[in-house]
């Protein structure tokens, strides 16, 4: 996808003048900081740029992720200057978007499992989780399934399993969840739109 360079060029200009000013001073730390920034600018120019949309409020601001072509890692995220709503600007949360990437040490990386009455999480693999969850869902559903309600009407539902979430995933994922829940016969189906 083609992006204009306006935002990057503007930023480069600001960095350049900053270097000029700080070089007059004695303290070299700002100079180093600006030089690092300049390196980052060069990296950004050489990077693959991928657009995304902010994951906080519903304004739908555009962001540009700079991805290092060698490592495939995101190293910078900033507002998309071509986006008609935010025009490159971001709020405090959007500006901190980078802290959602894998650079954040708190990101979940493994399947975690806590056995009944357990006191800690244990790391597991996907095969374990998927087959165990499927078994639990089926057993709970089959044991508690209501074919007809008190009036004798056909209802084919399971009130023993609840589904909550989510308005912070993509449309295609939302549709998958909406359909999955109905296929299982769930009726306690809700998410953040309610609250």
């Amino acid at each position, binding site marked *: *996808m083609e992006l204009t360079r306006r935002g990057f060029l503007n930023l480069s200009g600001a960095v350049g003048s900053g270097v000029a000013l700080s070089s007059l001073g004695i303290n070299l730390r700002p100079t180093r900081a600006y030089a690092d920034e300049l390196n980052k600018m060069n990296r950004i120019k050489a990077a693959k740029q991928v*657009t*995304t*949309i*902010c*994951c906080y*409020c*519903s*304004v*739908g601001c555009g962001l540009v992720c700079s991805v290092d072509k060698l490592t495939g890692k995101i190293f910078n995220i900033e507002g998309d200057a071509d986006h*008609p709503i935010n025009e490159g600007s971001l709020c405090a*949360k959007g500006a*901190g978007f980078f*802290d*959602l*990437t894998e650079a954040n040490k*708190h990101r*979940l990386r493994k*399947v*975690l*499992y*806590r056995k*009944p*009455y*357990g*006191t800690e999480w244990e790391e597991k693999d*996907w095969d374990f989780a998927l087959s165990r*969850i*499927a078994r*639990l*869902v*089926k057993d709970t559903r089959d044991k*508690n399934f209501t074919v007809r309600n008190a*009036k004798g009407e056909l*209802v*084919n*539902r399971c*009130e*023993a*399993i*609840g*589904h*909550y*979430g989510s308005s912070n995933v*993509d*449309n295609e*994922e*939302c549709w998958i969840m*909406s*359909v*999955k*829940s109905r296929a299982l*016969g769930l*009726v*306690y189906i*809700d998410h*953040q*739109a*309610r*609250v």
Partner: protein
Amino acid sequence: MTNHYCDLKNADVILIMGSNAAEHHPIAFKWILRAKEHGATIIHVDPRYTRTSARCDFHVPLRSGTDIAFLGGMIAYIIENDKYFKDYVLNYTNASFIVNSGFRFEDGLFSGYDAKKRKYDKSTWVFDQDGRGVPQRDRTLSHPRSVFQLLKRHYSRYTLDKVSSITGVSKENLLKVYEIYASTGVADKAGTECYALGWTHHTVGSQNIRTMAIIQLLLGNMGIAGGGINALRGEPNVQGSTDHCILYGNLPGYLKMLPASLGTLEQYLKKYTPVSKDPQSANYYSNYPKFFVSFLKSLWDDKATRNNDFGYDWMPKIDDGKAYSTMHLFDAMYEGKVKGFFAIGADPAVSTPNSHKVRKAMGKLDWLVGENIFNNETYEFWRGPGVDPAKIKTECFLLPASASMEKEGSQSNSGRWVQWKYKAAEAPGDAIPVGEIEIKILSEIKKLYEKEGGPNAEAIVNLKWDYLDGKGHMNVVKVAQQINGRFTKDTVIEDTAKKTKTVFKKGQLVPTFGMLKDDGATACGNWIMSGSYTADGVNKMQSRGKEDPTGLGLFPNWSFAWPVNRRILYNRASCDLNGKPYNPKRRLLEWTDGKWVGDVPDGPWPPQADRAKGKYPFIMQKDGLGALFGPGMAEGPFPEHYEPLESPLTKNPLSGQLINPAIEIFKGEMDKVASASEKFPYVCTTYSCTEHWCSGALTRWQAWLLEMQPELYVEIGEKLAKEKGIKNGQRIKVTSIRGEAPCVAMVTKRFKPFRVEGKEVHQVGMPFNYGWLFPKDSTSDSTNILTPTVGDANTFCPEYKAFMVNVEKL
């Protein structure tokens, strides 16, 4: 939003009420400020002075929970001072309709109330009809049972004195807002309203918004550039998640969930397909069967046939009149009836009211499945404060998910712009997208049912569920195209108006929902998204064109806006009866040379003056007109002021009905209420802050944001702080009858006491972004420990914005 974010710049007056846009939607606020630069007046009505107030022309404080009183006074002002847009009101609203002679409103209650059930029989909330079955109208608007006269009578009780005494707003401030806002009731002025959770988080939340809808219809502000009612919603894809209806009462595209009493497809379609006898009403929902049958086909594909009612019996059905919302879910869980729980991309242990009840309920689960990018209080409930893990039987899974920029897919903003995102990087470790997790879980379940069978196994075994690609990853494009819809067989679409015939091949995508079929020839996962692809597979959600032909900032070539790329809903109402723009400065749409030019019109028909072919502008309404009288609401066709469930008052100054008569009262052992109690004398409201998002489940894990807003606080006005001997920065606790929340006192000028019914009433406020899990050194917990289990009568959106507390030193 009826309009969209960039459109805010087109307004002459912006009323921000129920929102703190500058702090919670900062980029939306940029467009509000742009309107201000063009000379617009910006008004902020809110209990608290915020950074929104600071940038507005003026701020008007009002007591939480009294918005209907405030706005009801505005309706009275508009009518009594003849400020309404007469042409619009007469032609585009149901003002002239005659209401049934049995309709009454007495002492806070409408006709048909059943106190035991707390529900209304709405049989008198209907219009008289002529011999053809078309609503009778009095175009002089003088008939005593006309909607206009009933509206006038209803709000004549909302006098300045009365409203001032209820809301705590001075009469001068009321008049100032009313005068400025009512100035938009002319052809060449636009007024808009921005709300957020400040309006929805009430037991009268839906009616707060409806009161504004009435005002916007009276002033001719619906369907125009710079007008409308604009919800600044709080989650990145809350529009999309609502559109796809991960909600108990609706199916994707706002189709109705199946009630148990409608045993056959035929009965269901008859009930939900409205019929209008008025030839000028487009009554677009007459197409309902096409949308619904196409949805069933999207689930079960070839297995859904005419012979099996397209799988109608396989769908779950809810008991008539019963709700299954979040609060109902946790209520049932508390009673031990819910055994398993999926909590996906959410932290309900923090975000649901009455958190103690919610957390206790979760301890009764057999199993819990969490899917998220970070851990949170819901997934760790088994070792939360005061919980002994050795006593919690629940088997828990926490599945690592990809973050937003690590996956491809679309996201819908509040302005209905469906924007495509691209995958920038791989997710760390074993994390995969939530959609992929969900597909894989159901695939495993499907295998079990194929092998072992089980009750209503057909619904699962027959489900079309081939959404993984060759490498075992979620095929996002395939899902997006299934949502858009495709032809299930070779189909000829005939356009009688254009005299064309188009042939579509089996498997081709449906280019617009106007081509959906009710005979099984199309499968469509969500009809409102039909048209997000072209027939040949071009993804319009990826569009990045910046053209702006109207100069109004519609950006028609940027992303895809549902429905059919329409940027402003009800846009035909921006023109007069002959299709000429009311406001020549802002030409949203115009009927020229036999066609509409501008935004995508609300239907292709000629304007209303063409009595043979023309249609009314509000095409989704059965009668085609804006509903000043709205019989669909649970608590009455006209909004009425009721006090919050917990209020400082013992009597409603407007009637003998203290609280909303149609709300459901939860009566469990943990559902305690303390209204007008000496123990809890202060009104409390809750809100967010710029640096955190919702429950803080994403933002508390981010060092930069956490440093800015590290822990829970309560904002207390200077006068109350002095009375209580509380100092700024001191650690105190806020208590309600449901629990206590330790926090830091922030003594501020932003809250001032209100004068309500002759008494001084203090209000305090707290952010809802915190929990116990992280930051680790925090002594605070969720604000929702304090809030009551009660919600709006129509939506069950909880009343987080007005409840009663005390503030105490530790």
